């Protein structure tokens, strides 16, 4: 893995190093099906993610829903146990740590969730909620009474710091009495009262109105400076990430596709997915309606991943070696047959889509030798409707045994390439 460190900076050090992090969730399928199916189906939520977090920086983890960024966040703070890889926090690999170790870790790393309305216990007063971490992690030596007094002082001072004033009054209120912005401040106060070194912010402002987002973001920046914290900022909002993050990593389907200094990436995005994401961000100016690069289709499910580069079925800049496979042809065929204008007689010649199968690089259907020629001809015609790169990737089309098949040439191996100060995982930039 190519190392990415801030050049020439002897002061900062690594606080977090994630190596090949893998989090797979089992797919819940009925027992009978499980016996029949040979392979175990898993959701590849996080599939080999690596990055380094320097002390004091704000790193953004950006992507659409389902890309795995939230799972990475939870894995880093060990709310979830990774199924593979390393999570090295201050020189200790905590990927497989258990119980007591993890609880001790909670003093040093915390997480803030997306929904301020749901993060606070409705039955607990704000003061108690914010002070709860102090209670959980208290040392046994102190007397209860003195602890209570100290804790209360701590909480009140924390409330002042995050702007939850008048603190004496709000201390006794319940979450139901607070506004969204106030709740989020309480959540932040609760997360940092133990002065953690690392704070994972999972969409910290996404559910707040725009007019108060700025205030909360400013608060977060302020607190970071005052308490010398490092942030892992998870968001789908590229605009916010640009403003607040020093470095960002763009995630897609469980992998990082581009990672580097945020200024560089925003100025000159390299990966086609990054380019697409940036192009669709709405600009609040009706006179500047820009051209958008919309990737085809939708994010595929994380159980059956695309071959080669995961983005290839949707990529506007796709090459022939990116990973074309049988399934892609079937998608194209499906599209073709669904469109009454194009389908024409193909329904009868090629048959319904259910008759077709796809396995790895090959797709095909059972047929008698008589129709083979016609089917082959139609396959080629339909291919022409797809991306040019797809046509170039075709190896053979024709009769093979009892099936008419189409077989693609295999993909080139995808590797991480350094482009400028960043790393991109894309064949476009490989040698």
């Amino acid at each position, binding site marked *: 893995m190519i190392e990415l460190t801030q050049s020439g900076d002897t002061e900062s050090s690594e606080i977090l190093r994630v190596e090949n992090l893998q989090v797979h969730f089992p797919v819940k399928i009925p027992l009978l099906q499980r016996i029949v199916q040979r392979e175990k189906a898993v959701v590849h939520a996080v599939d080999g993610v690596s990055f380094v977090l320097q002390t004091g920086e704000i790193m953004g983890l950006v992507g659409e829903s389902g890309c795995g960024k939230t799972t990475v966040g939870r894995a880093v703070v060990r*709310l979830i146990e990774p199924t593979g890889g390393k999570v090295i926090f201050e020189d200790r690999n905590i990927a497989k740590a258990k119980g007591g170790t993890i609880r001790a870790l*909670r003093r040093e790393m915390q997480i803030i*969730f997306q929904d301020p309305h*749901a993060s606070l*216990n*409705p039955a607990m007063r704000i003061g108690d909620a914010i002070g*709860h971490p102090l209670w959980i992690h208290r040392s046994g030596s102190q007397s209860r009474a003195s602890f209570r007094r100290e804790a209360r002082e701590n909480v009140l001072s924390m409330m002042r710091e995050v702007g939850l004033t008048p603190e004496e009054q709000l201390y006794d209120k319940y979450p*139901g009495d607070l506004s969204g912005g106030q709740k989020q401040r309480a959540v932040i106060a*609760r997360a940092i009262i133990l002065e953690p070194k690392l704070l994972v912010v999972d969409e910290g402002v996404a559910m707040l109105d725009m007019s108060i987002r700025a205030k909360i973001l400013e608060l977060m920046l302020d607190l970071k400076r005052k308490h010398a914290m490092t942030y892992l900022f998870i968001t789908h909002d590229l605009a916010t990430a640009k403003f607040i993050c020093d470095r960002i990593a763009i995630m897609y389907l469980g992998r990082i596709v581009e990672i580097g200094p945020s200024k560089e990436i925003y100025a000159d995005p390299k990966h086609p997915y990054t380019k697409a994401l940036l192009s669709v961000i709405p600009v609040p100016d009706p006179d500047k309606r820009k051209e958008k690069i919309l990737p085809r289709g939708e994010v595929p499910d994380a159980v059956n991943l695309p071959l080669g580069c995961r983005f290839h079925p949707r990529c506007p800049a796709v090459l022939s070696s990116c990973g074309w496979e049988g399934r892609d042809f079937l998608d194209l065929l499906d599209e073709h047959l669904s469109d009454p204008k194009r389908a024409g007689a193909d329904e009868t010649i090629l048959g319904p889509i259910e008759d077709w199968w796809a396995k790895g690089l090959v797709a095909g259907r059972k047929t008698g030798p008589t129709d083979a020629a016609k089917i082959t001809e139609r396959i080629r015609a339909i291919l022409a409707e797809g991306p040019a790169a797809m046509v170039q990737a075709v190896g053979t089309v024709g009769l093979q045994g009892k099936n008419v098949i189409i077989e693609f040439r295999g993909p080139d191996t995808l590797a991480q390439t350094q482009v400028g100060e960043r790393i991109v995982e894309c064949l476009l930039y490989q040698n």
Partner: protein
Amino acid sequence: MGQDIKQQRIITKILGKPVRYVRSLFRPLVRERRTLPGILSWIGLVMLLGFIFIGIFAPVLVPIQQTNALAYPILLPPNAQHWMGTDGIGRDVFARVIWGARTSLTIMAIGALLALIVGFPIGLFSGYVGGWVDRALVLVMDSVYAFPGLLLAALIAAVIGKGIFNIGIAITVIYIPLYFRVTRSQTLSTREELYVEAARALGARSWTIMLRYIAFNVVIVIPVIFSLSAADTILTAAGLSYLGLGLEIDVPGDWGRDLSDAQKYLGSGIWWTSLFPGLMIILLTIGLSFLGEGLSDIINPLLRKERS
């Protein structure tokens, strides 16, 4: 001033947790006092308190002698001395009815309360822990629940014998599964809430999460279930007594028993021996139902609002 705060603190320390539970239950009642469900709850609560008052002060209101057999001429219709007349063995019906409140409420207290005290923690634990423990408990509880209540109570009563305490136990057994189920299902849904995950992220231990985070939020529905099951308890107890399986004959008040005894006189046009005990059963049941239904309407919007 300092003295008061000190006293308050001491009281809070001693009563501590139970008081906080109870307080969190009463908040919604006070808040909703002007709405229809609120009014309904208050009516029910007042009725219940009325009955409790009668039950506690029965000896003061009506000397127990009035419930002895042959204290008065038999089967007198309601008049100035006997507001509700006398029954077939010369007891003052009014006296019987007043003392009956004491009996019923005692059974209700033992039965429903015990069921709550046992069922709630088990349900909480089962729902939180999950796994095979949960599945085993559910199996047991569902089996008991599936049994027709009165029948099971009768069976148990037949086995362990008569008496207020025994009847209370029999009823407890029937109602434990109810508390278990309700608590468990609430626990299951509360367990998935974000604030519970947040508590885990803070490093809270399982017990803390179960008690402070889940229990407090689950206990909200208990008053509803309590009121409704208590109403049911009264009917079951009365049913048992009616069948002759309930209490001993010499208990000073027993609505169900009185109803059963009064049956044979109905044909002769003697209505007061059956009407009044029956009326009491109905009133207490209605009061409890009002309280339960009213609370249910209040609690549900609250539960929904918490999600917004």
